[in-house]
């Protein structure tokens, strides 16, 4: 689902080319970042963006209700859009698996976007890599089923947020590399040196071999408002996908 996220990240930009408004879902995307790196705010912005596309509802899975609605996420908090976002709160891995396994039993229009926040909370109970793989594979299978229902050219996107450890603690490296097999597109959120009164992050989107990496600056004001601007490219560093180490590998 690299495309919805790319549109969200491009909202603050005037250069918004028409070709990005395709309904193509794009590959499943894994959103990675440390604690408090704005993953939920970006997921919610993606939900609002997809809800405004005039397609099916958005299914937002998370272990617990959002503490507050993120602000300044591009699209206004239009009640019509909010109505299209369906939150479900599976309390355990077991319940999440059950929800995914039975997704085809639900009636009504198929979702156009499937979001899962806090995947790490559902992985801790798991034992081995095969359990994590089955959860990831079932997420893909559920999105594929929704795509099948919505018909060709209008697939259901999938964005999953995973909290990574602070750098230096690489205990979850194996898990991340396993998940990356199932999610060809990734977006890394990395904290930058804070500006006064602001919490700034660098968002690096790798759309999974379908195009070059792109980077944005995501800033949060103390009141929680989010602003997104393209990452300022330094002179002579325009082709930033190869040389820069900004991929944020843990």
């Amino acid at each position, binding site marked *: 689902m690299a495309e919805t996220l790319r549109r969200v990240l491009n909202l603050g930009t005037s250069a918004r080319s028409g070709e990005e408004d395709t309904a193509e879902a794009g590959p499943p995307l894994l959103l990675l970042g440390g604690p408090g790196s704005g993953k939920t705010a970006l997921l919610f912005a993606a939900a609002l963006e997809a809800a405004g596309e005039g397609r099916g509802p958005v299914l937002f899975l998370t272990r617990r209700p959002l503490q507050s609605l993120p602000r300044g996420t591009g699209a206004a908090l239009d009640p019509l859009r909010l109505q299209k976002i369906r939150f479900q709160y599976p309390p355990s891995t*077991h319940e999440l*698996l*059950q929800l*995914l*396994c*039975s*997704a*085809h*039993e639900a009636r009504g229009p198929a979702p156009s976007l499937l979001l899962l926040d806090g995947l790490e909370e559902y992985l801790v109970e798991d*034992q*081995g*890599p*095969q*359990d994590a*793989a*089955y959860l990831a*594979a*079932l997420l*893909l*299978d559920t999105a*594929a*089923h929704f795509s*099948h*229902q919505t018909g060709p050219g209008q697939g259901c996107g999938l964005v999953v947020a995973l909290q990574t450890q602070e750098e230096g603690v690489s205990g979850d490296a194996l898990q991340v*590399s*396993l998940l*990356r*097999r*199932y999610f*060809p597109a990734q977006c890394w959120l990395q904290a930058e040196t804070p500006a006064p009164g602001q919490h700034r992050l660098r968002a690096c989107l790798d759309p*999974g*071999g379908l195009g070059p990496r792109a980077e944005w600056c995501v800033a949060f004001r103390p009141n929680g408002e989010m602003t997104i601007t393209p990452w300022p490219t330094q002179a002579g560093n325009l082709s930033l996908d190869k040389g820069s180490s900004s991929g944020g*590998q843990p």
Partner: protein
Amino acid sequence: MAAALAGLTLPAVVEELLSEMAAAVQENARIPDEHLSLLKFIFGPSAIQALDLVDRQSITLISSPSGRRVYQVLGSSGKTYTCLASCHYCSCPAFAFSVLRKSDSLLCKHLLAVYLSQVTGTCRQLKVSDKQLTDVLFAEKKQKA
């Protein structure tokens, strides 16, 4: 990193081989010998085992009125494994070990058998209710728990 990314998508050469096989099967109702040797070259002993599973009609495509589908493969040991239809996943130990953990093979024999049965059109079809399909998908989880 590149290897990890490529881990669960079939390389283009395999995709190409499978679609060539499908075309040949449509024309001659059998897999040409040169395709078989290429298959053995890429997948090693798994290729023979997978072809054996196809011959014995061990692959069942389970579908429900919702349109959701899942494969079940009856392994040579008599155990049944679940393979997802939309992405690479098989519940067998070889998939967990060789594909996920060690990354030294692309597929297990069951997943390869699923692809080959698609090519040859020889998988058994089983229609179940939506509820029963949920149980098939969910049972996969419970067996291991």
